[in-house]
């Protein structure tokens, strides 16, 4: 590659054209049947087909042009930069980082704290509903879920494909206990966490001996079992109809957010009625829950139990020979992860006001796991960024009606969110095989804190 960049551009451009055409041909063959031809039922319910050559042409063009650009321009550019860096002799980790880079966490936190008010200021009450609820709360729920799963998958290295089960346990705990017994959110929030943690231990016991693929299959089954129980235990859970009219959270019992009630928040503060106040309140609740998750994770990583989780991920046999009880270590990992899933679940129930088994399908587990993997196993910052990109990206897709101009009026962008997920996965894994933030921050230091780059460790060992 380096030789061809030095000999000049024609060589590279020729190669780029060849590769671009090749990519176009491959795309044409791949999409010919999937995109080029569409089947549908006509009035007589007969299955007929029509062609979509225009859409197919767009797909092929996108593939060819992006391959051409990446081979002809992007890759040479990256190689040149790498070469220049290697020549200058400056190691990546010793480089002075920009102000934004160094204070990223503080800036992000401040931004989150002012975010609801910022959106109120800019787009007004009605517009804020979307930004606070769809973007803010939705993303933060996934951040929390992914951070919870991170304890199980990222730290303890136990691949859990049924994490959504604990989310469901939390949500239904709140929904059922609040509608049958009228308990408040603030009482049920910890209870949902504890119940989910119990289920984490119940799941943990039978799978203690399993690792890797086998564990993944069993946890997947567990997730499905919980969902099927929720569907079929109609006496209690009302099955697929779900539970509606779940009580709203109150402002710590001081003010209520129900419009009719005597001590309603808007009346007490003399505000005009709007649901945006409740959403802003919920935003801060989930933000606080996220911060709790992060705090607990960071603290635990420095304590013996967190260190034991990480050691367990690295080498189980070595762990046992060092006197670590792998049984309790695994169970606490499952229970702690499940507990945060439960918190998030009960929050989800109070925010939606409605839960049904629909919300707890396998796809949710997959999305949460994808966020953890994309973010870089074990890295809180990376996972948060991945959640913003993936969940925020899905929401942004809904907004992109201009795509209809390109792809035709039948194009519904949000249906392509799985495509987006897949694409993001491939891109991140190609360029950053350990996720956005791939380096594991050491938690113990003798004298000074020093960055240890992920690039020092072998693939598959990090």
């Amino acid at each position, binding site marked *: 590659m380096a030789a061809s960049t030095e000999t000049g551009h024609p060589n590279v451009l020729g190669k780029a054209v060849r590769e671009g055409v090749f990519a176009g041909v491959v795309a044409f063959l791949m999409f010919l049947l999937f995109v080029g031809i569409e089947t549908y039922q006509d009035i007589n319910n007969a299955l007929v087909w029509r062609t979509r050559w225009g859409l197919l042409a767009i797909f092929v063009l996108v593939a060819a042009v992006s391959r051409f650009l990446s081979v002809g321009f992007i890759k040479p550019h990256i190689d040149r930069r790498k070469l220049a860096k290697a020549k200058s002799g400056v190691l990546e980790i010793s480089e002075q980082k920009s102000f934004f880079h160094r204070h990223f966490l503080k800036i992000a936190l401040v931004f989150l704290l002012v975010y609801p008010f910022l959106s109120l200021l800019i787009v007004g009450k009605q517009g804020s509903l979307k930004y606070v609820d769809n973007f803010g709360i939705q993303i933060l729920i996934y951040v929390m879920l992914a951070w919870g799963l991170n304890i199980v998958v990222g730290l303890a290295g136990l691949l859990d494909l049924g994490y959504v089960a604990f989310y469901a346990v939390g949500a239904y705990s709140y929904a059922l206990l609040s509608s049958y017994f009228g308990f408040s959110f603030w009482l049920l929030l910890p209870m949902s966490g504890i119940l989910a943690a119990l289920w984490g231990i119940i799941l943990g016991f039978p799978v203690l001996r399993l690792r890797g693929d086998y564990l993944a299959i069993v946890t997947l089954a567990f997730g499905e079992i919980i969902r099927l129980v929720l569907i079929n235990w109609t006496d209690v859970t009302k099955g697929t109809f779900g539970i509606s009219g779940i009580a709203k959270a109150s402002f710590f019992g001081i003010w209520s957010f129900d419009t009719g009630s005597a001590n309603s928040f808007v009346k007490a503060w003399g505000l005009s009625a709007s649901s945006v106040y409740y959403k802003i309140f919920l935003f801060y609740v989930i933000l606080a829950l996220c911060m709790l998750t992060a705090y607990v994770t960071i603290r635990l990583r420095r304590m013996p139990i967190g260190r*034991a989780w990480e050691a367990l991920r690295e080498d189980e046999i070595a762990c046992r*020979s*060092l006197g670590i009880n792998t049984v309790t270590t695994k169970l606490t990992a499952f229970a702690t992860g499940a507990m945060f899933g439960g918190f998030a679940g009960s929050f989800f129930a109070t925010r939606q006001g409605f839960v049904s088994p629909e919300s707890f399908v396998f796809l949710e587990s997959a999305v949460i796991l994808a966020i953890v993997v994309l973010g870089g196993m074990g890295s809180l910052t990376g996972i948060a960024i991945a959640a913003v990109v993936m969940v925020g990206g899905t929401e942004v897709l809904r907004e992109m009606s201009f795509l209809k101009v390109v792809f035709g009026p039948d194009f519904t962008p949000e249906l392509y969110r799985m495509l987006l997920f897949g694409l993001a996965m491939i891109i991140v894994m190609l360029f950053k095989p350990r996720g956005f933030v791939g380096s594991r921050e*050491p938690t113990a230091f*003798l004298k000074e804190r020093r960055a*240890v780059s992920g690039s020092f460790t072998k693939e598959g060992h*990090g």
Partner: protein
Amino acid sequence: MAAESLLKVQAVETYYGNIRALAGVDVEVNKGEIVSLIGANGAGKSTLMMTICGSPQARSGQVIFDGEDITRLPTHLIARRRIAQSPEGRRIFPRMTVYENLQMGAGLDNLKYFNEDVEKIFTLFPRLKERQTQRGGTLSGGEQQMLSIGRALMARPKLLLLDEPSLGLAPLIVKGIFEAIKKLNQEEGLTVFLVEQNAFAALKLSDRAYVMVNGKVTMSGSGKELLANPEVRAAYLEGGRH
């Protein structure tokens, strides 16, 4: 020296499924000794070491440590009786730094000695001190072996089990590691039970040694005796001298 028994393995039989890996092994390690176990591949040396640690557990026979029967204890409780192991293949934690690896070895009840112990290990293996912020997985084979032994020593063991510390290492590094073991034994009276393929180096180092063939101990004696024994020479030493 009045021999006070620290570890006693009595008529131990261990099976993997239906395959008998140990067929009634008797081994004894006294306090302050270096005892080595030599033998060919598949003789059951590592199995004996793992059986002492309780994984797999012996089907019959007894493992007695410091007067207590530990045959049926789970591995982590055996480790807490201060039997530290540097396992075969070293098994350090690759993503953790050298320093964190040492922390993992310390266990909870030794935390008050922690800084002192780390310093001790850094004097024993100065290379580890240079590399303390580096990840375990980035170390060379010899450094990983030092780390593995260092991690085991952090537990302040009464008995140190070493499973093939010379595996895949250059002769010069093996020499260094064996010298460190000798030093630990002479200066601190550490009891060491060593499993080795490198029979010559192991026998030279050891007070006593056992030879194992097909899951049975066939010979035992002092290191010097076995070095001079024609059978041992023929089987394990000729051509194998480093």
